[in-house]
């Protein structure tokens, strides 16, 4: 008995075996909760799945992708991604530069205040914005545009105002987080570079353009990458505004479409095909970003 225990202890403690025990939780989770589901989605995407039985139907599910709902979902997700990146990269860079200056007053307060929305769940934030974007003339959103002389809008029932409402919700929750990313990037730029530029007579704009932006490039790439993923996987925001059914597909994203198809209409095969297209988008973006980071060069 003792020798078995001894052998066992020596075995799991040997330098050959111990590393695999350390990393085994990841391997198990990868196999069970990533690899297996990915393979099973791929298989399901070629099947017609009824109650209990599945039948291979070749590319039928993929052919069905050429419909107006998928196009709407793809457009909504793409637009959303585009607008959130267009706002959530330049704006936080500007605010981070302001917050990084030694001369700025109350900067800790400002940083914390702008970060606070990130603490809320999408649902809590979405509930607020859903009712703030109500169609009545007295709601917050309509009162605000009223100040500009614009009449009340039915925000969540038209596609353009609905997109604005989605983007504002996203900007509200993520502005502070992106500021933190850029702040940490800014803090990595040595002061000496700026001092050298001062000696050469560079003005603030030159310094921003020729030192700050190039130095922030890795952070900018990172933020754009996570924004692309965040944008294309967006679902909870749409759910908070419209649940799962929207008139004319307003606010319906790719993931909302997967949810509707899979869980409301129980068309698992077709839903899987939609999921695969999303997976491909994500993989392509992933490869591009890993390439930009030069990961494949380093790894040999």
């Amino acid at each position, binding site marked *: 008995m003792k020798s078995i225990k001894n052998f066992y202890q020596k075995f799991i403690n040997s330098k050959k075996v111990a590393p695999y025990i350390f990393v085994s939780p990841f391997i198990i989770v990868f196999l069970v909760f990533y690899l297996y589901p990915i393979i099973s989605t791929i298989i399901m995407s070629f099947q017609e799945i009824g109650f209990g039985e599945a039948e291979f139907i070749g590319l039928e599910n993929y052919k069905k992708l050429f419909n107006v709902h998928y196009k709407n979902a793809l457009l909504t997700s793409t637009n959303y991604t585009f607008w959130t990146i267009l706002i959530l990269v330049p704006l936080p860079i500007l605010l981070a530069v302001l917050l990084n200056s030694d001369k700025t007053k109350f900067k800790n307060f*400002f940083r914390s205040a702008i970060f606070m929305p990130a603490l809320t769940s*999408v649902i809590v934030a979405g509930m607020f914005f859903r009712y703030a974007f109500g169609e009545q003339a007295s709601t917050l959103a309509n009162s605000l545009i009223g100040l500009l002389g614009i009449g009340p809008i039915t925000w969540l029932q038209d596609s353009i105002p609905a997109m604005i409402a989605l983007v504002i919700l996203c900007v509200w929750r993520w502005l502070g987080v992106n500021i933190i990313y850029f702040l940490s990037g800014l803090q990595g730029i040595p002061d000496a570079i700026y001092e050298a530029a001062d000696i050469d007579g560079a003005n603030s704009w030159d310094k921003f353009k020729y030192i700050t932006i190039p130095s922030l490039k890795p952070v900018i790439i990172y933020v754009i990458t996570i924004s692309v993923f965040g944008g294309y996987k967006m679902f909870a925001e749409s759910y908070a505004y419209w649940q799962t059914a929207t008139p004319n597909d307003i606010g319906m994203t790719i993931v909302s479409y997967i949810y509707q198809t899979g869980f409301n209409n129980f068309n698992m095969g077709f839903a899987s095909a939609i999921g695969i297209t999303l997976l491909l988008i994500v993989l392509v973006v992933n490869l591009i970003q890993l390439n930009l*980071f030069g990961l494949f060069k380093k790894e040999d």
Partner: protein
Amino acid sequence: MSVKQVKLTVVVIILAFFAFFALAPFFFMLVSSFKPGDQIIKNGISARLDLDIMTFKNYKTLFTERNGIYLYWYKNSVLITTIQTAVAVFLSSLVGYGLAVYDFKGKNILFVLVLILMMVPIEILILPLYKLSITLKIIDTYAGVMLPFIVPPVAVFFFRQFAVGLPMELIDAARIDGASEFGIFFKIMMPLMKPAFGAMIILQAMFSWNAFVWPLIVLRSNENFTLPIGLASLITPYGNSYDMLFSGAVISVVPIIILFMFKQNSFISGLTVGGVKG
């Protein structure tokens, strides 16, 4: 005022504008939480305060409505967040440490896999995960909510980056003294990784507390809902528990805000995980 002072004032005004944009919704949520729920549903959230219709009743209904269903949601959220955070952080520290400290076959492939999975949104896999949960009989259970996220790649990456910087001489010295590999991890390295644990615990806790998409799919019965799912279930045209909507939302945000007040730096270092690529 000199040009410089004008510039500094403009900076403060810009920042104050965005701070206002960030904080105003909290104020209006708080105000709404004191107003009758059906009023909010009917009229939306307005800029008016309407002090005369404000009441504490909404907070009382959290305890009474539908046999205190809100308290179930709260309990579920607290338990799931606690268990998931503890297990996920522990397991990812093991993996991250293993990837950082040892040389073994397949190590590079595993690390690239971590980097790739960090970016794969779980939303893509909801359908097959749902089927898998039915097969594994973990649908509508705590385990179902937690298991797919029990070794988050982001946390693995963070621990790996942190552990690369640990003093390797200590490990060799401990080996000479006859310490086992796991003894070294638990007794020597884990205490040294304390700052990384702080940041990851907070990040994970926030993630679990606010998790929405997967719990929405895996949790089926009302009394098993977590707070975000429960609150989302209140927003229906046929609902009758609207009073709980904003009082429930406010009470669900409070713990995270309190934690943030005390542990701001851990929040920030946890969130900037991916920003600093090693």
